[in-house]
């Protein structure tokens, strides 16, 4: 269900920007979703189909771009690609790394007409 509120926020954001451009419709949306964003891409796909209905985004195509995680170890500074929030630093075994990327939930761009 939070995917539906997120999909509705995406459409709302697109509406706002399309409005500023005095556009009549949105034909494409590019959405970045990090692996650690807490959003399930399949569920978001499904929710988008609902959310675009009767909006300025009706009929638009969307590209969901997964963003793979990158972390920097707080102890030794090593950067690595963790598979989960639990993975210790492969260089020193430390936990609690800073997540540099992978938590994104962003509307990157839209195409309007």
């Amino acid at each position, binding site marked *: 269900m939070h995917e539906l509120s997120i999909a509705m*926020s995406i459409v709302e954001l*697109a509406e706002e920007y399309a409005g500023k451009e005095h*556009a009549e419709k949105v034909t494409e949306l590019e959405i970045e979703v990090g692996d650690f964003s807490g959003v399930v891409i399949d569920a978001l796909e499904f929710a988008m189909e609902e959310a675009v209905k009767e909006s300025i985004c009706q009929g638009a195509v969307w590209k969901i771009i997964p963003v793979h995680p990158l972390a920097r170890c707080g102890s030794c500074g090593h950067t690595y690609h963790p598979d989960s929030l639990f993975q210790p630093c492969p260089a020193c075994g430390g936990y609690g790394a800073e997540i540099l990327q992978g938590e994104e939930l962003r509307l*990157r761009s*839209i195409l309007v007409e």
Partner: protein
Amino acid sequence: MCDTCGCGEGGETIILRKPGREGAHIHLEGEHAHHHEHEHEHEHEHSHVHPQDHRGREVVIEQNILSKNDLLAERNRGYFEAKKIAAFNLVSSPGSGKTSLLERTITAMKGKKDFFVIEGDQQTMHDADRIHATGVPVIQINTGNGCHLDARMIHEAVKELDPGEDSVLMIENVGNLVCPSLFDLGESKRIVVMSVPEGDDKPIKYPTMFQSSDLCIINKTDLLPYVDFDMEKVKNYARQVKPEMEFIELSVRTGEGMEPWYEWIEKNSGVLL
């Protein structure tokens, strides 16, 4: 609809109600309810328009999708800070004992702290009625099919509840360890409650929730003799995602371990900067 929590589809009708005044309630309809009110907040934004291509003009946005919620959450936070209200967002799976914890805490700390409570549930006023019985002001938010509270619901509920200066605002979120982790409410601290019968692998199953919480309460310790539950294992898992996590082990039922929790509330309220 939601693959992660299994909650239902559709319905955006949010209802706010107070015990004893069930007839009077407020509907928050849809995401557009405050659309015009908040337009000024976006003045600083600007868009870059690229030349027309065959599918239309490109508008580069690069904006966080939850930015509206985050903005409103910051507004709530500013309001709480100005009034020195300590706002705690309690998250857990259904049945971990959040409402029981609040009932016992409010009763025990009466006279020391002014409590105000926001109850979030998909349906029913049961939890608000339980809190109402302790004698403190409470408002129930029924989210319908929604699986989390968001900053706008809190903004509206706080307007109704009007918590006083130096008070403690307890927000019991919808029972769900996935969705509420994404929605900042403007709380001062997030508290994840888990209970012994749920097993010791909760933190690895729901890392985002544990990562975003400040305190982990482990409830129902009276059941430790009857279940396989490794306390150190839980804490180690939780520290792997949140090294600074604080822990309090307690039993709401027997009252054992409640004292450190009351002290934690004292320490984290009233004197916020």
